[in-house]
């Protein structure tokens, strides 16, 4: 049998070779893009912010559609996340857009745990992807990716600084998702206040060590625009789905008695910048960062938590399998222990119940005995009484006969009148 020799020549540093004619692999990017177009794209946005900051309206404005949903009330008991998926199509690009809204954020009196449902949601999506990736039979290429690609954090336009709830939430989220902070309803702030507000927010974020998403500046084509935009963060946006006639065009705007705020006017608000950055320039980068940075971090932490470690390369799959086996045995052992415990507890309970029942039985017996005794006592007493009554009766009878005897004797002795005798006879007849 032929043996194999594997020789890797010029391994890592492959030499550059000039081409003497047109080969044609410059169509590769096109092939790649074509495949993606056929497949469709996924994009998931998470909107976090207090109720009433215009999250749903902004989404409607960004994507030019009316997504469903009514404005939420303020009396939610806790923070919940509502997610909706929409299929949008533009020219030949199909986008599966998922918008997740935080409902009830900031409405509670005690807001300590407000960030938890959000973090849990993000983790759940990562977990689902991790599970799919670790399966034996998996379908990664047709998997509907639900991981959150971008988190738009809505800051309320107080004009002063960030609220502590905002800081805490953003700190918890910055290692899990790309955060893009935006100032909502920014038509409430004047231009000068806005500049100060932005500076204050940025400095607070920096001093608290919150890492927000920076638009990438390594690709020359977009480096310039991205770095300018990085300086405009957080974006001050205004959302509106109503149209107003300005000049001879219909534009999206909000109309006030003192003027009209045009959404797509760069002097009025940063909506256009947000749209540029979020959709037209960096959508792919957001997805990539989510996959390569946030997801990898989650995966690493999760696997390390479960006790897997990287060992030497040649024993990797074995050690992984061994760890799996060990974990499995451990788990089965635990299961068995729990089963034993439960069984013992059950037996215990049965015994206790039995003892109780026996007690009850005994008590009943005792009671019965007592009652019986009482009854007998009573009976005896009655009999005694009866006996004494009988005795009395007997004595009386004796006395009576004795009395009669005396009478008859007296009669015999005396020869008294028959009348008396008759009377006595009558009397004795009565007796």
């Amino acid at each position, binding site marked *: 049998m032929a043996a194999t020799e594997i020789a890797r020549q010029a391994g890592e540093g492959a030499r550059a*070779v000039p081409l003497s004619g047109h080969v044609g692999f*410059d169509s*590769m990017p096109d092939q790649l893009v074509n495949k993606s177009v056929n497949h469709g794209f996924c994009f998931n946005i998470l909107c976090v912010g207090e109720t009433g900051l215009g999250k749903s309206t902004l989404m409607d404005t960004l994507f030019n559609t009316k997504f469903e949903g009514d404005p939420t009330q303020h009396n939610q008991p806790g923070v919940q996340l509502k997610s909706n998926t929409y299929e949008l199509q533009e020219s030949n690009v199909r986008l599966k857009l998922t918008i997740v809204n935080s409902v009830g954020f900031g409405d509670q009196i005690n807001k300590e745990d407000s960030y938890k449902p959000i973090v849990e949601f993000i983790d759940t999506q990562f977990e689902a992807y991790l599970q799919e990736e670790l399966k*034996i039979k998996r379908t990664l290429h047709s998997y509907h990716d639900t991981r959150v690609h971008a988190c738009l954090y809505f800051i309320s336009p107080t004009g002063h600084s960030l609220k502590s709830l905002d800081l805490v939430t953003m700190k918890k989220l910055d290692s899990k998702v790309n955060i893009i902070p935006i100032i909502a309803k920014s038509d409430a702030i004047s231009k000068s206040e806005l500049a100060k507000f932005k500076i204050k927010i940025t400095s607070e974020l920096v001093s608290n060590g919150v890492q927000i998403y920076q638009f990438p500046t390594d690709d020359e084509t977009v480096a310039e625009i991205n770095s300018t935009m990085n300086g405009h963060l957080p974006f001050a946006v205004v959302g509106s789905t109503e149209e107003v006639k300005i000049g001879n065009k219909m534009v999206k705007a909000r109309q006030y008695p003192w003027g009209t705020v045009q959404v797509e006017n760069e002097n009025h608000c940063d909506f256009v910048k947000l749209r540029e950055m979020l959709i037209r320039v960096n959508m792919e980068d957001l997805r990539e960062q989510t996959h390569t940075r946030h997801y990898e971090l989650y995966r690493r932490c999760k696997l390390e938590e479960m006790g897997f470690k990287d060992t030497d390369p040649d024993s990797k799959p074995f050690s992984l399998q061994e760890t799996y086996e060990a974990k499995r045995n451990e788990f089965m052992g635990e299961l068995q222990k729990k089963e034993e415990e439960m069984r013992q507890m059950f037996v215990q309970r049965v015994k206790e119940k039995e003892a109780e029942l026996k007690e009850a039985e005994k008590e009943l017996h005792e009671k019965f005995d007592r009652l019986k005794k009482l009854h007998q006592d009573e009976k005896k007493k009655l009999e005694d009484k009866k006996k004494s009554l009988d005795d009395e009766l007997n004595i009386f009878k004796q006395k009576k006969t004795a009395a009669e005897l005396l009478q008859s004797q007296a009669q015999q002795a005396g020869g008294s009148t028959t009348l008396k005798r008759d009377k006595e006879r009558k009397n004795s007849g009565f007796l």
Partner: protein
Amino acid sequence: MQATDQREPYMELQEGSDSELWQSEVITSFYGNMADTAKTTHPQPAGRPEKGAEFGYVGIDAILEQMRRKAMKQGFELNIMVVGQSGLGKSTLINTLFKSKVSRRSVMPSDEERIPKTIEIKSVSHDIEEKGVRMKLTVIDTPGFGDQINNENCWQPIMKFINEQYEQYLQEEINISRKKRIPDSRVHCCIYFIPPTGHCLRPIDIEFMRHLSKVVNIVPVIAKADTLTLEERDFFKQKIREDLRVNEIEVYPQKEFDEDSEDRMINDKIREMIPFAVVGSDQEYQVNGKRLLGRKTRWGTVEVENTAHCEFAYLRDLLIRTHMQNLKDITSSIHYEVYRVRRLNENNTHPSDQPNGHSNGVPTHEVLSHEM
């Protein structure tokens, strides 16, 4: 370094070739699609009537441009393996395909003397660039295949090599901290050279292709096709296709992986032409006032890129211009996954495995879900 020859735009085939060529249709339809993705055309977001391009346009299709930019920056990788007996023109064909001296053979002619005693697997990487698109091309040569007297199990070293590449990728993938971009050394395509006997497939060909079509994409080609006349060529091809069908060998493009009817149509046309009868050459000759790659003989010059002469152009288009991404996709999502399933299952000795499509039958799943 950029290609210096400017005379061949990518639509070259339409110039000097026959009218009913499938690949020109394919290319135009491809590039026709590309033209539509220009940003200024009409968007139709769900539910909104069109009000005017400025107003209604969101810009979702800009993601295509973003993807393209990212791809250009990252560059591409392609790993091709050539298998065949010595003397069939493997190295020459690769050089012709990529219009450069990528194959070692032509660099060190002293190697031509030596017939290796064992099958070797030599893998050489090159960086090539065209119009801003960078590609790392790895050519895996297998000198010694089929050259011994006893060729039993000659596919085994090759199969082992392919599986080793899968193993390497798998190891990297299940690492805890893994690289941003896992280096892909998996063999995307294996070109198998059939000697131009004109009769039918030999047993070694059948054995090899039968074993390897399960783990890698095989593209069979008839080597040195200038020794066959057109009738002999057609007959040979028919016989080969018959043999492949009888032995249930699925070569690329595999019927079962056609995604939709459009794919099937394109791929059916390709399947009717397999195996391609190719001629390779890296020397240019003057024909009709043009300098063309060809082989000059006393009775004429065989033009490599003339589709009336040989089918090299079809092969090149298939491998490079239209189906390269598809080759890589099938390798990564089908062949690699099959390997992975097998590998992860063989270490698992638990009897309660249920390998059906929905549950994943591995204890890890239970472990994961319960330990969270």
